[in-house]
C-alpha cells in the first residue's frame, strides 16, 4: 500500500524568506502523480503544484517549486519569497495513474506560518 509522510507538523518562516516542506512516499508503482495542496484557514483546499512521475524536470509554479527525487521517493516543496498569504496547512498527496481506481493518499500536513 502507498503511504505519504510529512515529517514536519509545523514550520515558520519570515516574510520574503525561502522555506522547504518535506514529503516522502512509499510505492512500488512507476506511474503516478504527486501533488501539493494548500489549505488556508478559510478551509478550502487548492492545488499548489503537481508533478508527473515520468517527468524528470521539476515542476515550477511562480514562487513554488518542487524537488522531485524519484529514486529516493522524495517530493519537497520550496516556497520562495514567502508571503503572509502563504500561511496555511500544506498537504502532500500521491495518486496512482491509470489504475482504474484513482485513490489519492494524503500526508498528515505541515502547518506553515509566515511571520511579518
Amino acid at each position, binding site marked *: 500500500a502507498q503511504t505519504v509522510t510529512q515529517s514536519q507538523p509545523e514550520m515558520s518562516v519570515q516574510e520574503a524568506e525561502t522555506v522547504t516542506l518535506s514529503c516522502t512516499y512509499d510505492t512500488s508503482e512507476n506511474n503516478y*502523480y504527486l501533488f501539493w495542496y494548500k489549505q488556508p484557514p478559510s*478551509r478550502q483546499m487548492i*492545488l499548489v503544484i503537481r508533478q508527473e512521475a515520468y517527468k524528470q524536470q521539476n515542476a515550477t509554479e511562480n514562487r513554488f517549486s518542487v524537488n522531485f527525487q524519484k529514486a529516493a521517493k522524495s517530493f519537497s516543496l520550496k516556497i520562495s519569497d514567502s508571503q503572509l498569504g502563504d500561511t496555511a496547512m500544506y498537504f502532500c498527496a500521491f*495518486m496512482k495513474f491509470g489504475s482504474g481506481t*484513482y485513490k489519492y*493518499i494524503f500526508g498528515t500536513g505541515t502547518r506553515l506560518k509566515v511571520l511579518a
Partner: protein
Amino acid sequence: GAGVSQSPSNKVTEKGKDVELRCDPISGHTALYWYRQSLGQGLEFLIYFQGNSAPDKSGLPSDRFSAERTGGSVSTLTIQRTQQEDSAVYLCASSNRGPGNTGELFFGEGSRLTVL
C-alpha cells in the same frame, strides 16, 4: 456551478441523530470523493465514485456511514446514529477523468459537523 458546492457549511446535531451532507461537484466531473478531516489532522479517505462504476467504499469507518451519488452528479453522505467521534470537517472533491485530465482534485469548502 463554477466550483464544488457543499451544504450545510456547519451542522450541529445531538448524539444519536442522523445527518445528511450534500456535495454538488463541478459539472462534467465524473469522479467524486469524500474525505474526513478531524481537527488539525490530515485527510481520511471515505468513499470514491467514478462514473457508473461501483463506488469504492473501502474508507467508510462503520456501517453507520453511507453515501450515494444520483445521476452521476450530486452526492449525499449520510451518517446514522451520530457519535461524538464523528465530529469533523467532511470534504468533498471532484475530478475530471476525461480528455485533458490533469489528476487535480477540486475541493469544496467542507461541511463542519459537530456532534454534542
